[in-house]
């Protein structure tokens, strides 16, 4: 798997992501500076978490306009894989590569804690190492993770099976309490129609080592590495 991690000014989880990808793929991912415009040769483009451009104005808004986005769009258009985590998810929605938007958390506070995620479908390159319906733990850390889309869009996403993960209780129930940031229909992650683009708010890359409290996030990266093995 040839993975590249896009680094916008203010991104801060690129190192976490590199560790998770290296553990899965066996080699270091390429770091892609936001001025680069050629992503040829990459199987997977990852937009990691952080505060691109300080998250001033709106999270992800300024990054979504930067030069590398043209290359990322082209990568998507040729069916390449894209993973956007946290700020990366926000950037993907701001760039229109995924529908909807991420609003301020309903509590209006930054939320840093573990959450439980339910795997809504396992027949994708991202989720293939999870069981369908499995519940896994993931850290999250964001101020603006409250997923919003209008009802028609939400219905379409559900109808087309594009919801990747939902916030649930440890037992797997979709409840308001499990949905700390207030996301529409407990949506934590979304696929593009071709299932090659995934955006999600929580940070599975921060739970890939037993020392850090678990390996619940590891199957995502292992699955990707297996799917994209050259």
């Amino acid at each position, binding site marked *: 798997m040839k993975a590249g991690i896009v680094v916008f*000014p*203010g991104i*801060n989880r690129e190192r976490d992501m590199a560790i998770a990808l290296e553990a899965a793929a066996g080699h270091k991912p390429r770091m892609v500076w936001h001025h680069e415009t050629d992503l040829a040769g990459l199987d997977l483009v990852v937009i990691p*978490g952080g505060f691109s451009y300080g*998250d001033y104005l709106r999270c992800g808004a300024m990054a979504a306009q930067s030069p590398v986005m043209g290359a990322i769009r082209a990568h998507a258009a040729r069916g390449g894989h894209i993973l956007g985590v946290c700020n990366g998810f926000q950037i993907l929605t701001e760039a229109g590569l995924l529908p909807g938007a991420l609003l301020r958390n309903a509590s209006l506070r930054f939320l*840093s804690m573990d959450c439980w995620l339910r795997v809504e479908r396992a027949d994708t390159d991202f989720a293939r190492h999870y069981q369908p319906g499995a519940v896994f733990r993931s850290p999250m850390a964001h101020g603006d993770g409250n997923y919003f889309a209008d009802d028609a869009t939400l219905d379409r996403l559900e109808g087309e099976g594009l919801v990747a993960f939902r916030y649930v209780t440890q037992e797997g129930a979709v409840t308001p309490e499990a949905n700390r940031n207030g996301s529409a229909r407990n949506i934590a992650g979304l696929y593009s129609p071709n299932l090659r683009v995934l955006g999600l708010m929580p940070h599975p890359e921060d739970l890939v080592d037993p*020392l850090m409290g678990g390996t619940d996030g590891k199957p995502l990266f292992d699955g990707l590495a297996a799917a994209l093995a050259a």
Partner: protein
Amino acid sequence: MARDVNESLARVFGLSAEEYARVLDIMGRTPSLTELGVFSVMWSEHCSYKSSRVWLKLLPTTAPWVILGPGENAGVVDIGDGLAAIFKMESHNHPSFIEPYQGAATGVGGILRDVFTMGARPVANLNALRFGDPALPRTRRTIDGVVRGIGGYGNCVGVPTVGGEINFHPSYNGNPLVNAMTVGIAPADRIFLSAAAGVGNPVVYVGSKTGRDGIHGATMASAEFGQDSEEKRPTVQVGDPFVEKLLIEACLELMATDAIVAIQDMGAAGLTSSSVEMAGKGDVGIVLDLDAVPQRETGMSAYEMMLSESQERMLIVLRPDRQEVARAIFAKWELDFAVIGHLTDTGRIVVTHRGVVEADIPLAPLAEQAPLYHRPTVDTPQPAPLGEVADPVGLEAALLRLLGCPDLCSRAWVWDQYDSTVGGQTVRRPGAADAAIVRIEGSRRALALTTDCTPRYCQADPEAGGAQAVAEAWRNITATGATPLAITDNMNFGNPEKPEIMGQFAAAIRGMAAACVALDFPVVSGNVSLYNETEGRPILPTPAIGGLGVLADAAASVGLALPRDCCLIVIGATVGHLGQSLWLREVAGREDGPPPPVDLAAERRNGDFVRREILAGRVRACHDASDGGLLLAVVEMALAGDVGAGLLPAPGGVASHAFWFGEDQGRYVLAVQDALAMLQAAAAAGVPALLLGVSGGKDLTLPTGDTISLARLRAVHEQALPSLMGG
């Protein structure tokens, strides 16, 4: 700005009549306004340590593993594998009272710069906070703003906030304490220092532009709050964590080259203190051309530029042949870069602006003749012994009250707003262990980090309290299995011109020094914040300690979460000391008696034993017994592990409430599988040990037979702070 410089203006600037006379003497003429500004900030309490220096000298600062003690921007210790930990704690108390969000945020930004300016990538932040009575709306607004500010800055720069502490007391009503600590990692042989060298070398300004922010912040930080504090407001600085993040990356990139001769962040008193200190330390002169300074506002005077405390700026002396390399790096990160001067051999700082020499000051006397005061001290009277205190309510009621009181309730509401995992190296997060554990990327090694101080002990007996603060930091690190290495301190006290306050300060230092020596735990950096008073009422003396330890293997650390089917054993002697305990305050409604004595030899013996047992793999969980005593320690372990416990009766000779809520020092609660072996090992080591009970189930069973469900305990513990803060 055409003001006549004279003694009365000097007074407005915070200089005394004698100090101003000394300025005249050094200058041999009336200083310009800019020069007066330079003297006033360099000789402020904040920059000169004029009241505290004579006492700080008593602190031990060396050990074989100390690479650099106090004197640089932060302290440096060897942590093995060719790496160094660089760390420091600093206060932002006054700014946080005036504008809690920005005050706390810029406090975090400032301490981060102190650490990365030395070449370290920051890997952890901690914060030690003291607030007033939480029933007051003003206090709640301050808490809310401070917590948001710390999170807002730390989360954005991507440094995990992994620990800290919070206390409440009405003495902090008009003067909260915000002490921020940063820890970074650098190669031990690539530490960057601030002493300028090389006559002719360029002096370069990088980071954000200069505005009229925080002018006279350093003297404000040294001034007591009075009725007019509201009017001092325009000095508030606004932080830009995005620029700070870029600055970290740009500086670290530059530090990987050989371009830097010396580097220093612009902290309090901005351009003045950074240039004066860099040149002074290097015994060179410096010329600054203020026209070259990147400016955010128009029409700034020399005085304003020299005293501005705009954030996210650094001053660097470069090798002349590397100037373009450096310029390119800062251009890449879209930061300002400007050559604003060069080094000279004159021993003077010369500042020009629009073709006019605005300041020309000899550096040696500015430093050497800085005021130094041996202020009079009065000892704090020894508190009267407490005597017997009857138990008015019983164990269960007292436990529930303590568990939900502001000083003991869960801090999850706070740490849930701090990104504690960014970096992917946080082995033990807030609430998971007595010290946070952060692994060093790409290695098995880890740091153990904590902040500690019990101000009510310091108020009753500053010497015992000073020793206790150091001992508790050492204990919290030990309780994870780590080896304590060194501390940073943040001395928060009232007005040093009052002999009682200076007496508190001196005694706290004596206590700290004794503990540092006994525990091999030297001070490598620190900060002093005086004049923490509102309308003449001082805060509790608060010598906050930030401790750092190291683990050769992160996997060997233990947390405090209680596992099932273990025995609970307390290490250390329990005599049931209730003086100054939280039980006494919250249950008996009294705040008197002496604080618990600190037996440093026993502290060391107990801790070394506990660490050895943890590293031998014979301890499943460990928690020190401190605030609230043994029962609180056991309940915190039970809640963290979601496993209940059944407790045995207190041994004869100690009243039940004193046994369970007394705050005797030097104790640890261990969860072990083989109780007998542990008791025997303790006996062999000459360490007191006692079986307290066993773990299992989902309830706490008190020795009285009363049973309380963990769910109920959890509700009391975890809902207290959110409900106080309104959700």
